[in-house]
Structure formats: C-alpha cells, structure tokens
C-alpha cells in the first residue's frame, strides 16, 4: 500500500488487507539493504490472522523514496511519522530484523506509550560491522553484497535445500542487494555500527536468534538480554542470520506465540 511521509513516497505491505481500527497492529522493519519482502511468509500470516500488518520499506529501500535515513534514531522517528499518517489507534507491536531490530528497540525506547511488544530477530548489541565489510560497502564494491549474502546465512545454506521450493537463497539475497541505489548499504551498515541505545525499554521483548548466525551470533545479544529484564529468547538451531528465510516456520512459530 502506498503512503506519503514528509511528502515522499512510502510503502508498506499490508498482506492485501485494509487497515481496520479494531485490530491490533504489527509493524515489520527490515534489515540493512533489504525491504519488506524479507518478512514475506511471516507478515502474510499475521495479515490473514486478524492483525493489521505494516511491513515497511524504510526510505531508500524497496518502494519507498530515498534518500536513506542516516541513523537508527531517524529511522525510529520515521516509523512513528508513518504511523501518524495512517492513524493506527492504540499501541503497536514491532518486529525487526537485524538493523530493523535496532529500529524496533529504539522505537520502544523513544515512545514507550505507543509500543506494546517488540520482537528482535537476528540482533546483536552493539551491532559492530567489520571494517572490511564497511569499507567495501563505502566503495559500493560488489564484494559487500557477497559479504552480506555469505555471512548473512548459515554456512550450510548453499549446500542444502531452501524451505521455499525451487528458490535459491543466495541468489535471492544478491538480487535484492543489486537493486539498491549506491550508498544505501553503506548507510545502513554505518547506522548499525555506531548505534547506542540511550533510553530504557520497558515493554516485553522477544529475541529470535539463529544458532549458526555468524553476523550477529547469539552471544552478541547477551548484553542486551541482560539489560532488558522483561525478555525471552528463542534460539533456532539450524538457522543463520536470515532467520525468516532459513527457518520460516520456526521463526513464525516464535512470533505467533509471542504476539498471541
């Protein structure tokens, strides 16, 4: 569905449903260089199970006009501006993946009165990005796409089956990244790399982590888990960083149980 934020085109996937005032709302926020379709199966499930779904394209990603926003705080503010445009009543729930998890976290810290629960998928805090990855992204070197693709999945992924019949996970990630405007991936990685959570988060939090994640390994979430007292964690055994694609059903089951 097409919207406007600050006069610019903004897109959210709503699972082909109109937004309804008496439904709870679940907002999905994608990771670095990606878009709303990262949550394809999961967002569709919630849309057909009684929720208002808003799987966002952040500015400069997917169908939302650029430029990309320079830091996690600006992205969190943009999410609230988006919600202001569509007048969703009551509190919202947020699910974020990787960079999007930091955005969800920051939303909960900035406007606690508007956030009911947050689910953080594939998150680490701090979310440090290697110099080699940052440098390749800064130069718009295709090697950065390769790094995101290879490190963004469990090492076993290229030699095993995709849960979605006939799809090739590496190829799909690369194709998405190749659609990005120059500089977007660097912008996102830099935003993750410098992010500091200034406020406190009081709402219930779910961590969904991939045991084989080399980009944000489960131990990378420990500091945040310690800080967020009202949290629980689901570790998915066979998944790397791309949990929604690598373990779509297990990820959905964790989300469905948390947001029930």
């Amino acid at each position, binding site marked *: 569905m097409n919207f406007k934020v600050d006069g610019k085109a903004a897109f959210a996937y709503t699972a082909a449903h109109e937004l309804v005032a008496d439904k709870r709302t679940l907002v999905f926020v994608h990771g670095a260089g990606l878009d709303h379709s990262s949550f394809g199966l999961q967002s569709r499930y919630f849309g057909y199970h009684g929720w208002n779904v808003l799987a966002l394209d952040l500015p400069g990603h997917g169908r939302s006009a650029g430029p990309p926003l320079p830091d996690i705080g600006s992205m969190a503010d943009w999410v609230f501006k988006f919600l202001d445009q569509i007048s969703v009543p009551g509190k919202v729930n947020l699910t974020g993946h990787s960079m999007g998890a930091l955005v969800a976290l920051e939303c909960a810290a900035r406007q606690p009165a508007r956030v009911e629960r947050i689910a953080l998928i594939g998150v680490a805090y701090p979310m440090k990005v290697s110099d080699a990855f940052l440098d390749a992204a800064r130069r718009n070197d295709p090697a950065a796409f390769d790094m995101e693709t290879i490190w963004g999945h469990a090492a076993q992924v290229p030699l095993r089956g995709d849960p979605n019949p006939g799809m*090739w996970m590496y190829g799909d990630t690369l194709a998405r990244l190749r*659609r990005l405007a120059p500089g977007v991936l660097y912008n996102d990685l830099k935003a993750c790399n410098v992010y500091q959570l200034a406020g406190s988060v009081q709402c219930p939090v779910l961590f969904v982590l991939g045991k084989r994640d080399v980009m944000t390994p489960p131990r990378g979430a420990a500091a945040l888990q310690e800080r967020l007292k009202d949290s629980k964690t689901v570790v998915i055994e066979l998944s790397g960083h791309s949990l929604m694609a690598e373990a779509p059903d297990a990820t959905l089951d964790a989300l469905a149980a948390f947001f029930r």
Partner: protein
Amino acid sequence: MAGPKYPGFDTLALHAGQSPDAATGARAVPIYQSTSYVFRDTEHAASLFNMERAGHVYSRISNPTVAVLEERIAALEGGVGAIATASGQAALHLAVATLMGAGGHIVASGSLYGGSHNLLAYTLKRFGIDTTFVSPRDPENFRKAVRENTRLLFAETLGNPGLDVLDIPSVAAIAHQAKVPLLVDATFTTPYLMQPFELGADLLYHSATKFLGGHGVAIGGVLADSGRFDWEASGKFDTLTAPYAGFHNMDFEEESGTRAFLLRARREGLRDFGACMAPMTAFQILQGVETLHLRMPRHVENTRKVVAFLDQHPAVEEVIYPELASHPDHELCRKLLPKGAGAVFSFEIKGGRPAGRKFIESLRVFSHLANVGDAKSLVIHPATTTHYRMSDEDLKRAGITAGTVRLSIGLEDAQDLIDDLERSLKAAMK
C-alpha cells in the same frame, strides 16, 4: 582480509538444493514419488495454501525431489530460483504465459529450434500473441522490431542450427531500454559454458533433456529467473504488478520484487497448465547435473577434434562452428564462450540431399535421431526433420540448406568418431 567465498561450480553441481534426507539420512536425492503431503492440522493446511508457510501441498505445484533440481539449476545459473517443467517447450510456454496474454508481442530470433518456432509462429498466434522474427546476428534488429505491445525479447544463446552467438549484453540492453526482459534458451551452452544472467539476460530456460541430463532417458525443462528485472518500474506487466483474483488478489511484485515472476509462474502456470516435472524425471536429470562439469569439457574437447577433421575434409563444403575463424561470430564467441562453443554444430556436405542421405545412413557410431546433448554422438538432417515445417525463406534465414547435417558430439573416443565420419563421407562421395 580475504572476503568470503562462494562454493565452486563443481561443488554446487553435486550439493546445491539438497540436505541429506531428514527422515532416513539418505545421501542420494530421494525420489519422493508422492502426489500429495499430509497436513499437520487444518491450520497448517490453510497456511500452506495461502503461502504463509513454506512446504509442499501437491506435486503439480511442487515436489521435494523436483525442488532439488530447481534449486540446483538456480544455483548454477546464479538465479533467484527455478521451476522444472515437463519439457523445454513447457518451460518456454510457461515463461510466455506468465508475462502476457492475448495482445502481447514477442521479438524473437529467427534462428530457433523448430519446436520453439512452431510455438511462436503458429500456436501462440492462435491465442493472440504475435511474434516478429529477426536475424539475431545484428542486435539492432531486435530494437527495430520492438512495438508498444512488446513484452519479451527471446533468442537462443547459440542459434539453431547456424550457431549464431547471441550478443547477450547488447540485446539485453535493448530489451531493458524497451522495459521488457530478455529470455534466452541456454540449452546448448549449459551453465558450465555460459552464465547468461551475468551477461544481462533476465530469464532463461533449458531443455534439461539435453546436456543437463546427458543420458537421453528423460524429457524435462527448467525455467530460471535472475530476479533482477524490475517489473514494477517497467509498468508493462499487469500479471505481476496488479492484484490477481485467481490467487487471493495477490500482487506478486508486492509480495516480492525478486520472486514475483516465479511466484506467478508456479501459483498460476503450474497450477492451471499443469506441465510439471515428475519426481523420477527430476532424479534422472539430477544424475546428469552432478557430472555436468566433467562432461562438458569432454564434449567440447571431442567437438574440437571432429570440427578440425571435417574442416579440412574435401567432401565438406563448410563447417559451421563459432570457434572457427570462418564463422561470422568468431570474435563474439571468444568473448562470451571462452570455455567452448558447445558440442552441437552443423556442416554442409558436398553433393546436397543425396550425399547427405548416404552419409547419414553409412554412420555406425553416430545415431540418427531427433535429439542433441546426449552422451552418445548423434546426427540429424534438419531440413527433413527438426525444421521441416519451416518455409524455404525461414530455412534460409535460419542458415539451413538441403545439405546441412547437424552433429551432436558425445563422449566416445574422438578417434572412433572421426573414423566413423571419414568412412561415411567416403561412402557419400561414391
């Protein structure tokens, strides 16, 4: 710091798309000879039907064995995914039917496999889809034929039977300027010799019956998508960018920009046209794919020896093979096909139709049949078989004469092949 590394082609050919079977630990790809799959409960059933969960419902739409082949070809081609079909012809039809309906227009190379020519020139025309055929040798011919209702540019990576080397980067650029995708038939080159997506093609398909299988025991096709064509930005593809009443008003591009084409092709094309691949066929073709990287170099090596022999033979008027300096696409071949120009080529025997008939009937190692890409060497006379429906004008445009003989070079001892050809040429000249 060294960057991360992708698995090599040879490793992907053996492993991509398959985990050892979770139930039994079987290392080989199991043949899931099942039409359907038990749902855990009614909620699970509904979520599979509505694309909220991943999995298999009915083998016309997807099957675990077939999915391994699909993923493996997608991996070898560098695509986002693939759909295996009942034949290469089914793959071409699935691509066209997913992109357009009545009123659509295709600009296609005139140097096509006869079956593809039939589909485009006669059958699709009956359903309101027109095709303009052009010589692929000059990419500008494609541009000149583009109309407002053009929805696809289509050609073979190596034209049939003249082996025109498609200038994929140039034709792809023309397609993209026209806001339509370029589809290529990559059967003759396989992902081992050429990767069309890296050169700019958007969609490709194989007759998997040929080199991918390599054994001549199974008919099949595979249609793959690069995921790079922006259907939304093009604005010409309502089948992918508008709500589809036939599937919960799904806007396929909105679901996923990179997967839209394959989503519609599977959810509509396989569902409604039903030209799916059988699991046993997928298993058989996978046996071939696992050795593709070993077989193709040998195919090319044998072909080069046979071409060299024929090129100097007094009974041969001309050998048409892009690696020869005499071929008009020789330079393009060096650039786009550095590993070799495949194992199918044609030559012109002196003496026309009678000499051709005598030659073919004298062969002992080569088999006279309507196929290519087998491990065994094959021969055919296009004017009386694969291209027999084409008019003289179309034949001429495709580079065929009454004396054209097409060979598909297999994996036998190259000297045995040369001896067979030498003896048969001698017989033909008597």
